[in-house]
């Protein structure tokens, strides 16, 4: 017995020694076939490729942004605090390059779509995780996820061909409130519908990850199904649910096509969702469709706006990452 043990330890040491580390990036082992090593290198290349592309995007984005801000017509402070966005005016000056109307338009869409998607998404997650039978769940969940597969341009036309006329009929004809043909509310509603599957699906995963022993514990104390869902399962899955919310809001912030079609392209410092607004992404598309030559002030402005958007969504992703990490620690 002793002898056997010693031999095996020696073998392990020998095997460890045979593993050469190439720049410490992957372990190549002498005992294995060449093919194995080729695979390891290939997979490594795949992951490096993604990182390089991301780096390339970031470099392009920020170098053009720096070029933009080194122009005499603009400066960073007025860009971040100004309330007028008139990049196409014949007089390019700092007061025409204030990004806040775009940020406000973006946040308004994100806020209203969140108000649509979060309650409905969470409600369907609770239903799927706690109430639905296995058969119902098997049908409903994929059906819900189909919503996520619809091209966003379709959502945009759904907004102007169905939701906007509906709003006009109800609000304008019924209550006498002015509704622009292009308006933020219509766009927000479809973006909200668009992100429901994301909220529902991720929240439901988080809720199903809650151990059933916790549910049993609550049932045994005389909790009703609704109490089990709202007082035990949702709190235990809260970090996952919050992460789902943040991801969905990030998606709403980044959404372009549907918003562009339904909300129009009027940068405006407004809080009225029935007016047309412009978001950061729809500005980028608007200019890209025109013929702003590269190196022109407008050609560079889209990079500055893009960088602003990047920073906002990047921060949100970091927040959701922190929240998700906490989520892993909740029940051990």
């Amino acid at each position: 017995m002793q002898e056997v043990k010693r031999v095996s330890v020696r073998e392990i040491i020998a095997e460890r020694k045979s593993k050469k580390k190439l720049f410490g990036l992957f372990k190549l082992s002498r005992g294995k076939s060449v093919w194995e090593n080729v695979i390891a290198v290939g997979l490594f290349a795949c992951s490096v490729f993604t990182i390089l592309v991301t780096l390339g995007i970031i470099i392009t984005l920020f170098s053009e942004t720096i070029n933009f801000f080194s122009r005499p017509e603009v400066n960073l402070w007025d860009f971040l605090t100004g309330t007028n966005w008139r990049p196409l005016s014949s007089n390019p000056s700092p007061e025409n390059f204030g990004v806040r109307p775009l940020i406000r338009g973006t946040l308004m869409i994100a806020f209203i779509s969140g108000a649509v998607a979060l309650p409905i998404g969470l409600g369907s997650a609770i239903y799927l995780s706690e109430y639905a039978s296995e058969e119902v769940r098997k049908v409903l969940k994929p059906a819900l996820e189909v919503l996520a597969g619809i091209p966003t341009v379709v959502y945009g036309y759904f907004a102007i061909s169905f939701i906007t006329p509906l709003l006009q009929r109800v609000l304008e004809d019924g209550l006498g409130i002015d509704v622009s043909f292009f308006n933020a509310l219509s766009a927000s509603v479809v973006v909200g519908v668009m992100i429901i599957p994301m909220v529902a699906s991720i929240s439901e995963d988080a809720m199903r990850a809650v151990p059933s022993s916790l549910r049993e514990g609550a049932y045994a104390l005389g909790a009703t199904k609704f109490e089990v869902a709202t007082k035990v399962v949702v709190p235990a899955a809260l970090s996952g649910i919050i992460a789902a919310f943040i991801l969905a809001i990030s998606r709403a912030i980044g959404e372009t096509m549907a918003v562009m079609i339904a909300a129009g392209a009027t940068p405006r410092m407004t809080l009225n969702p029935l007016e047309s607004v412009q978001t950061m992404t729809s500005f980028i598309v608007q200019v890209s469709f025109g013929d702003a030559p590269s190196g022109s002030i407008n050609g560079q402005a889209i990079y500055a706006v893009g960088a602003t958007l990047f920073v906002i969504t990047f921060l949100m992703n970091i927040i959701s990452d922190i929240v998700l990490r906490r989520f892993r620690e909740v029940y051990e």
Partner: protein
Amino acid sequence: MSADQNSNNHDIVFTTKQLSVYYGRQLAIRDIDLSIQRHKITAIIGPSGCGKSTLLRSFNRMNELIPTARVEGQVYYNEKNIYAEGIDPVSIRRHIGMVFQKPNPFPKSIYDNVAFGARINKYQGDMDELVERSLRQAALWDEVKDKLKDSGLALSGGQQQRLCIARALATEPDVILMDEPASALDPIATLRIEELMEELKRNYTIIVVTHNMQQASRVSDMTAFLSIDRNDLEARIGILVEYGATQRMFIKPEMQETEDYITGRFG
């Protein structure tokens, strides 16, 4: 069997009549007739898979959480059939506490864990007082009184299990069902749970499922021995083989099968 059950009705908490439980088409336990005495500890013993937990879970209708489960026969709780039509299992469970095999405190503070049941029952009295009383009864107060706001999951396994007992006590139940409450604990924590059961028996009726023969003989007053029906080993149907006072069951069991199991010849 009958000699032990001849107590008057007032001392009987539960009576099962022809109780059978199915999971889908599989019959798990068949025709169980059993009476549980008040303020006693009743142990349910038997080999793995003979339906001990299924029987225990019939007393608070927890089997219903499994969609395919079906119950036949009656269970009388204080002479009322809890499986009768129109009886809400939620109201049954508010009188019958349960402690599980693996400690399952909620990922909430110690205080909120204990207060959970009382809150959903809309407890009107002094919550702080109730929490303290329940934790004292569960012999946990001195260990946690300075950290009631800490997570219940920060406690050791034995403490977590006592927290779960405190949580059950806080709903002021009549009966406490325990499903192998010490099987996930070390011997010292097990001993504490057993001492606690001895304490609790003065105010509560306890039914405990256990794998541990010594535990059954140490703590229980009555023992029910369940086993797999030998006439049909393939089907694995749990039946009640023998039920009686623990002392007699362990010294002079009536059935050969009980003796074989207790002396470790099978199981």
